[in-house]
């Protein structure tokens, strides 16, 4: 069953067709890799689905419900969360605060202004548990602005996961991280995503990671979908090999 579907989704920036009448579907509980060269339209597509951008035309359906015109807030309520290519964190807050904020928001508690945040112990307990699962509990009291790039990447995903999403978009979760740390980060992320039964869409440039961790791959090229299939099918797809992967990597 499809958790998400887009029909004829379109976004132009002037003459540039960032997303051009894209029909895209994500199945429940899969880990899908969205790949393509720079400027292919991957991040634009995710920005449209998550609500950061407004489409020029087309529809976005989440479990059959039209969310095309919904606000970011409503989409999050509906179960969509995301991380960012350039990490977006609350740098002057601790790691624990970063994750706790997602939980407070999810539970509708951020509207409370006459109760001490520290009195909500289950929230902090859950935040600590999430940091533990992401291997970040050791640095929980540090400011988010003071940790390593790899830890920041993990925290970005942890903040999104704390929203308990049904559909999670991960925009280049290993970019800017050393080759050695990439596998560690992806192991942590995919194990949590699979154990929590979160449907994940991962934008990634590293083909080793794409082939190793995804169930299905969608290839974008110049704002359209070039190919869609299992890792084996994509590996054998000549069009993809020619335009994107290159024979050496394939």
């Amino acid at each position, binding site marked *: 069953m499809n958790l998400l579907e887009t029909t004829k989704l379109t976004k132009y920036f002037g003459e540039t067709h960032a997303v051009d009448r894209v029909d895209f579907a994500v199945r429940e509980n899969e880990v899908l890799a969205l790949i393509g060269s720079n400027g292919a339209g991957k991040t634009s597509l995710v920005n449209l689905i998550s609500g950061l951008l407004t489409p020029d035309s087309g529809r976005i359906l989440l479990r059959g419900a039209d969310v095309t015109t919904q606000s970011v807030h409503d989409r999050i309520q509906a179960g969509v969360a995301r991380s960012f290519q350039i990490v977006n964190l609350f740098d002057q807050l601790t790691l624990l605060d970063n994750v706790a904020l*997602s939980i407070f928001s999810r539970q509708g508690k951020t509207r409370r202004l006459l109760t*001490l945040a520290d009195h909500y112990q289950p929230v902090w307990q859950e935040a600590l548990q*999430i940091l533990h699962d992401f291997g970040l509990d050791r640095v929980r009291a540090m400011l988010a602005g003071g940790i390593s790039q790899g830890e920041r990447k993990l925290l970005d995903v942890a903040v999104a996961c704390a929203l308990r999403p049904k559909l999670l978009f991960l925009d280049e979760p290993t970019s800017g991280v050393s080759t050695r740390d990439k596998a560690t980060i992806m192991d942590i992320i995919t194990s*949590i995503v699979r154990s929590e039964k979160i449907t994940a869409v991962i934008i990634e440039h590293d083909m080793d990671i794409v082939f190793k961790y995804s169930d299905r791959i969608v290839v974008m090229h110049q704002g359209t979908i070039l190919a869609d299939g299992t890792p084996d099918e994509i590996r054998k797809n000549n069009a993809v090999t020619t335009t994107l992967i290159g024979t050496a990597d394939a």
Partner: protein
Amino acid sequence: MSTVAVPFEVRSPVKNLAWWVPIALLLVAVPYAIPPYQTILLAYGLIMAIAALGFNLLLGYTGLLSFGHSAFFGTGAYVVALMVKYLHVQSMELFILGTLVASFILSLLFGFVCVRYTRIFFSILTLALSQVLWSLAYKFYWVTGGSDGLRVPTPTLLGRSLGSDEDKVTYLAHGYYYYVLVLFVACVLLMWLIVHSPFGKALQAIRDNETRARFVGIQIRKYRLVAFLVSGVFTGIAGALWVPLNGLTTPDILYWPFSGEIVFMAVLGGFHAFSGPIVGAVAFNYLKTFAVGYTTYWQGLLGVVLVVLVLLLPSGIVGTLTQLTAIIRKRLSK
């Protein structure tokens, strides 16, 4: 996710409040320890601290620099003066009630326009709107007294008025000082609660990263508007408390340099620390009093202080003291 039980240390934010208790006790003893003039000067400082606390909810916690807080302060002062002039009210409690309503309405109006923007656009909008209010106070002289302003007599406090044989200075340095002190403590506790609440955390999240805040489900404009409302009402209350002490309100307190003074207070004390604006407001009040008495070019003197402050103490008095304490502790622990 794994279900490993992770130990959780209970944090006690109330502990942070503990060191405020001796300061509060000292403040209680002030009228019996120092001359009335000095007590009144301190009362001015505490009143400005309420305004600076309100202002800093926007700057320090929400990341919005307002150059228009004179509007809320002036609203508080003019509401009191107009209640005296037209309604012949003398009760301080009614003045505060009137100010709460008026500053809430004004903050809602200004906030509705301003919170749609950030950075320089927000600052300029708040500045422009406050200037509108200043020009109204200046031009509608038959209502506001124009540049002459409006006189405000000493109000009744909880029904008690200034006795016929009672000295006004003593009344202000005792009864009125304690009135201000109680409201100051109430405002500090309320603001402390707000900034340590989940709502306060959400404001800090908005300050740090608006995009991420949106994507954890925080409705940015709504939260900014509530922060603006709280900020405006706090500053309005400060204006209402200030005017009986001053005895007169003029359009000067609606003019943009007065907004600049509130900014100055927060920067002087350190807007990253909760107590920064409080310390800054009291210190600024003494500094200004000293500068005015010392030279006719007191604005120039304050300007030099501000430049030196920004260059040498960018984190303000409290921020610098905190850093120094951390360095000393680190060295002692070695």
